């Protein structure tokens, strides 16, 4: 028998446990879920390289200590990231929820604490998945929002979830948003993350989505966090029959970023389109981890992730598609492509298929390479200077991922961000 190894608790782990113990009396609702999540955390601690799902993102080493809990420096509600977008905006200033306008008639919005107090159960969208970042969020969540869209309602404008860090000192931010979309309803969610530069703040936010039968949701997550930030961002979604979710993670911010998506098919004929566009440079690290659980038959899933890494940046893609024994006729296609611009840039691709049904179509592909010299020469021979030729190819590479964004203004705005990122690269 192998001797059991007990790892010493790190300063961050001890601080997280103490935080929970000190805060517990003030934390409202979901007592059982919180306690269970904290027990799992105590047993496992922060995951390091030996934990397979965190092999490439060693949270134990990255998160050496815990930043003090959130304080805000904001004296007023900051402007939206996408100013012309309109829509209904929920702002989470250092994790504290405020609403900047009256709630539209189609929505019911409650502060998270109020909803938990009257029995809202967190974690329904997680299905069978378990994750330490989610556990920490569950144990410690204090603020956030609960949003409900009634059945057969089409929201004309997007719901904007604006997570913004404002404190002048590095702080720890936690927030949870739980959204239930009624049967047959349509909703667009734009989730943005921002914060101060040169501050090692720590953010752990989670958006939980439950899509009722036939509901359609488009979700766009934009990470423009500060350049020293640790960003842990989770999407969990539960898809009832015939529902459709498309989700794009557009990421250029943060120092260490883990964007997770846990998707569970609860009803048949649901479809999923998960995409990612990641631009990293310097010593940035961005990890896109997905778990797509086809628990029922006739589900469709498409995953397309593109990463552009310059300098010494490190991109990670972990995509797991699970097809449970009865989930026949599942159709899953997953691709991760990376473009390495810097000599020291790296990409770790880990696609995984766990298939327990026999009548399914599933495929995955992963590529990693540099720009094609022959294509660059062709463009240069037509008069484009090398930087412009490179920019055109990179824009094209990432642009394909943006095609799924249905709002033209938002798509143009994201596209402009790619151009700005490239311009900054060439100016450097």
């Amino acid at each position, binding site marked *: 028998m192998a001797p059991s190894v007990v790892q010493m608790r790190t300063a961050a782990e001890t601080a997280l446990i103490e935080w929970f113990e000190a805060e517990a009396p003030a934390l409202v609702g979901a007592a059982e879920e919180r306690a269970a999540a904290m027990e799992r955390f105590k047993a496992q601690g922060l995951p390091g390289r030996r934990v397979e799902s965190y092999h490439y993102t060693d949270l134990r080493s990255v998160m050496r200590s815990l930043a003090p809990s959130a304080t805000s420096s904001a004296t007023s509600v900051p402007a939206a990231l996408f100013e012309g977008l309109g829509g209904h905006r929920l702002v989470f200033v250092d994790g504290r929820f405020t609403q900047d306008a009256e709630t539209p008639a189609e929505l019911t919005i409650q502060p998270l604490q109020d909803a938990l107090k009257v029995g809202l159960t967190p974690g329904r969208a997680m299905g069978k998945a378990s994750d330490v970042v989610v556990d920490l969020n569950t144990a410690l969540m204090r603020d956030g929002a609960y949003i409900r869209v009634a059945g057969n309602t089409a929201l004309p404008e997007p719901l904007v979830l604006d997570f913004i860090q404002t404190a002048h000192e590095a702080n720890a931010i936690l927030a949870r948003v739980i959204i239930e979309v009624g049967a047959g309803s349509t909703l667009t969610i734009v989730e943005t993350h921002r914060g101060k530069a040169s501050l090692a703040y720590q953010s752990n936010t989670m958006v939980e989505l439950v899509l009722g039968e036939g509901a359609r949701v488009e979700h766009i997550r934009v990470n423009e966090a500060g350049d020293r930030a640790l960003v842990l961002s989770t999407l969990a979604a539960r898809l009832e029959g015939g529902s459709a979710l498309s989700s794009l993670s557009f990421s250029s911010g943060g120092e260490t970023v883990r964007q997770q998506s846990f998707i569970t098919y609860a009803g048949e004929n649901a479809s999923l389109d998960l995409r990612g566009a990641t631009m990293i440079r310097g010593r940035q690290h961005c990890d896109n981890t997905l778990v797509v659980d086809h628990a029922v038959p006739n589900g469709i899933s498409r995953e397309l992730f593109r990463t552009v890494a310059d300098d010494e940046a490190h991109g990670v893609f972990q995509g797991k598609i699970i097809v449970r024994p009865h989930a026949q006729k599942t159709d899953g296609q997953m691709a991760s492509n990376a473009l390495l611009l810097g000599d020291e840039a790296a990409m770790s691709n880990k696609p995984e298929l766990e298939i327990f049904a026999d009548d399914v179509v599933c495929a995955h592909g992963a590529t990693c390479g540099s720009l094609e010299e022959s294509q660059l020469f062709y463009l*240069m*021979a037509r*008069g484009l200077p090398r930087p412009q030729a490179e920019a055109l190819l990179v824009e094209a*590479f990432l642009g394909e991922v943006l095609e799924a964004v249905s709002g033209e203004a938002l798509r143009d705005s994201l596209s402009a961000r790619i151009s700005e990122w490239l311009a900054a690269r060439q100016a450097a």
Partner: protein
Amino acid sequence: MLEIKNLHVEIDDKKILNGLTLTIHPGEVAAIMGPNGSGKSTLSYVIAGKEDYTVTEGDILLNGESILEMEAHERAAAGLFLAFQYPLEIPGVATMTFLKAAMNAQAKARGEAELSPGDFMRKVRGAAEKLGINPDMLKRPLNVGFSGGEKKRMEILQMTLLDPAYCILDETDSGLDIDALRIVAEGVNALRGAGRGMLVITHYQRLLDHIVPDKVHVMAKGRIVKSGGPELAHELEKDGYANYTEAA
């Protein structure tokens, strides 16, 4: 005048061109014929500025000035155009976007004003129509999924729009059926004159029935071994390259 003087070129320590000398005068259409492996494509890449090659001796002069130190995009702006034997597919870049970027980049390099969007559209549509290019193709990603003939027509469209002083056509006839060949040749012929020089590189005489050259040069083992008039192409078609490859 485009002058190639005693050009010696290597790639990966392998000598490809061995003292090639050739002059193309303004308004002249010169053809280079030669067997496979004689260095024809290398010559076209070296003129256009591909970086994989090392010029160990000799020079290339455009209107009296050496272009060897210039990058590919600078040579393009100076008036050189290479029509590729195998035009590259560029996924995700709409043909129209690419054309605009290329035209604007060259205008900028020459200190000229960019075309207005309206003028640009009119110019592109007009040139495309003459080459039988469907306007829908201009919205598609450049060369992606295009047939061989469509790709070559797209090269001639670019040549028309960029209005170069010297054009190098590398095996433009490869992969074309008779009808496509005729359309492409007509496009090229429409650009003859006005002081524009052309270097037509081909393996077969067939293309030269449609684009009748002023001069024909035979290339073997990295140099020009014989020069003459259009009749030389017919001789080659009859007798083959054997005499020259042995002599060189």
